């Protein structure tokens, strides 16, 4: 190999390998998650037909008659393995079926919930990253300095505040007293700000911490000191050496946090009446809406795989050092 160029290209081999591995993983996840979901729902106590009827007709009108209608209509009397095979067959044909409760197409409902959750998570992540990474980098410039200490305080403060409480405080301040933002709801322009900010506050503390530690550590590293010694300006050292190396750690961290965000925002979603995936999953489980549970769980599982793939590819792009010995020539 010659001398490495200034902007190293990502070698095609590792990229293909990552994609191949993740595709296999995705297939295994689909099979495993579907079967596990099905088995868990079947083993939950309570009559499924009654639960579905409660979801469909509301608690004033769920009766034995409506439960019987549901049972007959959905063929809930059939053996469980037959129902599972049907579902897997439909899935192979990329048909997610219709919701047992609302009668609407699961794919359509899932699309709505997934996109609202992704929007919320992305907005929260953007705010958190902007605030957290900036603060962390600044704090790392003078470890032990005043900014560093404020960041530490912020981290513990933000983490110890439950999102539910924080959300209420934000609504009280920004909606009730200042009247600048709608308190809750979905669909209007300003609706996303408060839930995203609620999620971002806790997350920004973590990002600040991780960024600060990583940046501080890299600043101490020999290559950074060498870069400075060879005469590179502080700005160039930061951009070319510190930021890029910190990026690898931050990116992996970002992936994990995004997953936690999407899967863990039930409380915030319910406080702000945001129709997201968490909200959908809780309702679906409560009503035993099997196709909806299966589809939601699958979407979440595949999201994990997809995000991991993206993080891997991103890390490959940022850090071109080969990961396997045989690639080294």
């Amino acid at each position, binding site marked *: 190999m010659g001398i490495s160029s200034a902007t190293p290209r990502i070698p095609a081999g590792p990229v293909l390998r990552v994609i191949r591995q993740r595709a296999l993983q995705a297939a295994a996840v689909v099979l495993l998650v579907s079967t596990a979901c099905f088995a868990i729902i079947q083993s939950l106590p*309570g*009559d499924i037909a*009654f*639960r579905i009827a*409660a*979801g*469909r*007709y*509301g*608690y*004033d*009108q*769920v*009766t*034995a*008659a*409506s439960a*019987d*209608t549901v049972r007959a209509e959905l063929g809930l009397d059939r053996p469980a393995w037959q129902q599972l095979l049907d579902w897997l067959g439909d899935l192979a044909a990329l048909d997610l079926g219709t919701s047992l*409760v*609302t*009668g*609407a197409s699961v794919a359509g*409902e899932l699309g709505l919930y997934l996109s609202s959750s992704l929007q919320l998570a992305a907005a929260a992540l953007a*705010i958190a990253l902007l*605030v957290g990474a*900036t*603060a962390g980098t600044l704090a790392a410039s003078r470890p032990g300095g005043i900014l560093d200490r*404020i*960041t530490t305080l*912020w981290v513990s403060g933000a983490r110890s505040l439950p999102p539910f409480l924080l959300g*209420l405080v*934000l*609504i*009280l301040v*920004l*909606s*009730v007293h200042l*009247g*600048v*933002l*709608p*308190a*809750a*709801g*979905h*669909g*209007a*322009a*300003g609706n996303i*700000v408060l839930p995203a*900010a609620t999620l*971002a*506050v806790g997350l*920004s503390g973590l990002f600040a911490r991780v960024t600060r530690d990583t940046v501080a550590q890299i600043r101490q590293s020999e290559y950074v000191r060498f870069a400075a010694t060879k005469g590179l300006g502080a700005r160039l050292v930061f951009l070319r050496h510190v930021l890029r190396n910190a990026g690898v750690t931050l990116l992996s961290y970002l992936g994990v946090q995004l997953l936690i965000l999407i899967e863990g925002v039930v409380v915030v979603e*319910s*406080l*702000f*009446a945001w129709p997201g995936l968490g909200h959908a999953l809780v309702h679906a489980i*409560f009503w035993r809406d099997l196709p909806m549970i299966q589809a939601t769980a699958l979407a979440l599982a595949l999201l994990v795989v997809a995000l991991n793939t993206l993080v891997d590819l991103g890390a490959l792009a940022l850090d071109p050092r080969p990961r396997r010995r045989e690639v080294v020539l």
Partner: protein
Amino acid sequence: MLGAAAAAITVLAACAGEGAQSLPSPERPLTVVGQFELHSLDPSTSGGFFTRLQVAETLVDADLRGALQPGLATGWETSPDGLTWRFPVRPDALFHDGTSVTAAAVADALNTARTKAGTPLATVPVTAISADGGNLRVDLAKPFAPLAAVLAHTSTQILAPSSYGPDRTVTTVVGSGPYRVERLEQPATVELTAFEQWQGSKPAITEVVYQAAGRSESRALMAESGQADVTFGMDPTSLQRLKQAGKLTIADVTLPRTILLKVNAGHAILGDVRVRRALSMALDRDSMATALLRDPEMAATQLFPPSLPEWHQDAITPLAHDPSGARELLAEAGWRPGSDGILEQDGRKFSVTLRTFPDRPELPIIATAVQAKLKEVGIALDVKVGNSSEIPAGHQDGSLELGLYARNYALVPDALVTLAGDFGPDGADYGAMGWNNTELTSTLDTMAGTADPDVLNSGRQQITRILQSELPVIPVAWYRQSAVVSPRVQGLVLDPLERSWRLADLSWAK
């Protein structure tokens, strides 16, 4: 750091543009917030959503006291034998897609409604529903006096033929009311616009947005921040707080809905009427209403609340808290305190399970209050909070001992229809269990076949009396519906039957 976060939020807030209170009243739609999510468009399962929003109409309407009024039908007449009913359809009525409301379209909608299990129309002895010129004609197998009331139930709302898909599932909601659906985003948002060709008086407020919010704290804050103009489903604590703050108006009305304990009268312990009476006497309804519902007047003294004036009997002996009387009755029934204070009989402990569900937030709290009160008289009560369907499921498999829920006796404006189902000889999921009273059954039968006011009146008195002494269900509390109204709007009057929110009668405050 804090500053950076605050700055980020402020920037976003500024970008968001539309502040909650920044626009003058008429430029933004009326925002209605409630706890109900829209999960289905079908009239049988949408729970009256579209009649409340005045998008769809029923043939028969009801006024604020529950008296039947013409709706999509201009009136009704019955053949002398009571087997054929005719409802002339309002001749100039139009669906929101511009087609006229014909008797044939009404018959189609009702014939679809009839097939839905668990709805009141499915229990009426109908032989045929058909169009007869400009009339809707209903033929019955036997006389059924409350038919007109059943046709006021929200599950019988009339949707246009274009609402239905090929297999008669409802795909869009095209009604004939003063508002039409502009946009639907299930499960939480519905946008309405006034229907220009509506023949009745035009709504003063032409645009309405309904937004579902699951948590009562969120709803309270939406009301407080001015985001919501009319807010339903307030929890007692938030309501009290908003009342004390005094900035918003609270409209309220008592509903014909009662929170009650369903008792399995076929149960070895609870089958004894003395035991049921003792349970009732052990309950301190006044304290529960005051402390939990924050509304002392809601302590039930009988099954039917004053909002059902025809059924509520002022003269009847009220149910009252009497723990010593309860102990005496239990002793009379053979129950003696054991070493741990729990009552025993022939080595069997008085231990029963109560099932309830959290859809109405006060139910689990009331359940624990019941548990505490029963413990005072030596009854061990196990409270299980689960899904609403466990009550009908427990009724069917016979495993239910006690169930706590709220029952609305006027979903069909004539309470007789609900009562005939609930307290018939076989009992019902939300009515009696293992309990049968021939006198009550024959009274209900007689009342269903007559329109004579004297017979009906004495029948109601008799039914109230039997239910009060036999206690197949034990009333706990009545229900008050409240709505928080912003100063921007005026004219909200709540409907005790919860059929309509009467948004068309609202106007912007001057």
